[in-house]
């Protein structure tokens, strides 16, 4: 129990990620697939941000930064690096989503549907 609680963030990220992953693989609707992708990426972000957490620490903005040089205690602030990385990852996922939606919108214009099986039917008919 102790063990489970100590890492509960990580258990949850896996759970969320697998929900997204399943949607990506198994959903028939292209938009739902993209929702899956978004969930998947959100889970990764959760994972990274969890890495950055530190007990008893605050956000990584140095207090009294512009006062005279004084000792800074690194344990007082959480790890900034994962946050930086995730800013990037968020942007990437938004970009991917944008391009994917553009594709879906073109697919819809061409086939009149965004259900994968119906599109495949049309393709095999030709």
């Amino acid at each position, binding site marked *: 129990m102790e063990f489970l609680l100590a890492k509960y963030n990580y258990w949850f990220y896996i759970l969320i990620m697998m929900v997204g992953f399943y949607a990506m693989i198994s959903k028939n609707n292209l938009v739902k697939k993209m929702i899956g992708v978004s969930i*998947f990426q959100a889970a990764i972000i959760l994972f*990274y941000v969890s*890495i950055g957490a530190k007990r008893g620490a605050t956000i990584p903005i140095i207090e009294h930064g512009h006062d005279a040089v004084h000792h800074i205690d690194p344990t007082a602030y959480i790890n900034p690096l994962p946050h930086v990385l995730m800013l990037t990852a968020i942007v*990437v996922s938004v970009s*991917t989503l944008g*391009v994917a939606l553009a*594709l879906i919108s*073109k697919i819809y214009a*061409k086939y009149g549907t965004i259900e994968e099986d119906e599109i495949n039917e049309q*393709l095999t008919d030709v």
Partner: protein
Amino acid sequence: MSNLQAPILLVTIPLLAAFFAALGGMLHRKISFPIALIAIILSFHQSIIVLLKVVNDGVINYRIGGWMPPFGIEYVVDHLNAMVLVVITFVSLISIIYSKLIVERELPDKIPQFYTLYLLLTTGLLGITITGDAFNLYVLLEISALATYALLALGKDRALISTFNYLILGTIGASLYLLGVGHLYIATGSLNMADLFRILPSLSGNSAVMVGFILIIVGVWIKMAFFPAHGWLPNAYTYAPSSSICLIAPLMTKVSVYIMIRIMFSVFSAEFTFANIAWQTAVVWCSVIAIIGGSLQALAQRDFRKMLTFLVVAEVGYMVGGVWLANEIGISGAILHILNDALMTLCLFLVAGILIFKTQRHQLMDFRGMFRKMPVTMGAFIIGALSMIGVPPTCGFFSKWYLIQGAIEAGRWEFMAALIFSSLVNAVLFFRIIEIGHFQHETDSHDHAEEKISEAPAIMLIPLVVVAIALVVIGLYTNDIVTNVIQHAVPVL
């Protein structure tokens, strides 16, 4: 500290040019081509400088922002990626010249966008190759991926839906990679490859590290279309516009293979990677299936481009299998094959592009009478085909040579058999086409009046001829390439 700027320039020149191509394109659509061309020529020049420097003086480290790694991002150029960089810029240069007319015909109203995306893709591939930071690699992976999606989706027929599938799988692959990097980060606290390499041996047996390794490798496999995750590639590449496929098909899979090699040996170590014999065997068998399956599928195709895409899948098997043979010769072969396969795939796709440009078609039957109509194109085609089959002195023979030597050394007869089998199938594939080109005429075969030669324009033909000549020259200089470059890139086992 004024030091060599070539490593960063070769990436940033195409990047800046992408922006200028987009800006210039708004003024006049014809401006973007010269901008892109000049940028890629400069980048090619820089990559050669880097290669020579590495060969003469050894590894180059470049600290971006002047920060010490692992705190800042670092570029590391060693023998392995110096070679890949030259390959990328060379292929990019060849196909940008080649595709000028095709772009003007295929995408007349999207010329500036095309060149912007083209340059971004080149930047992405170069950056992936040169970076020494695991997370930076992910960002670049996404740049190249986004550019690829857009370029592929401009194609005809099924291009949209197959690009969408590629997008989903590509995103899964990249996300798994990112997740894997996260696992490494949580276990080590570092993102710099060299730093990871230093720390990881002390963490042997850590399950987070193991999972990280598996995630990264699987992610990269999906990206490179390695069996069994190869399904997306043939369709995505078949329907792509021929202007961009000459850049994408030769490079994307090769760069992914490069990432795999980089991760296996420069982040993890050879001892870690090859610790488990069962895994090794499984991967080699997968590549055997990829090679045999890819070849057989190629045999079943009637569309020239689709046939080539299945060959790309088979060639991925060559490289992955070669690396996982876990001996120096096999790995040398795989690295050599990155170079050789990029060029031969390029050569064949250039031929496909010319065929489409001239006839608007790309079935195998459309090669009818081509030997008479386009002798130069077909000459280059034959050289490319021989290289695929593995006939000396073309370069394809030599990478096969090393790969088979590696297979013998490792006692993996199944891999050797697969390679020989694929050579034979390739021989059938290409001679079938040569036969069509040689025998089937629209007119009577005993017609004395020579049919008019109608070649493609010189701007398309010259790049093709250059590539064809390169195939032979590189073949002949294999030993120099191996001793000067590749030998230093292979980890000591």
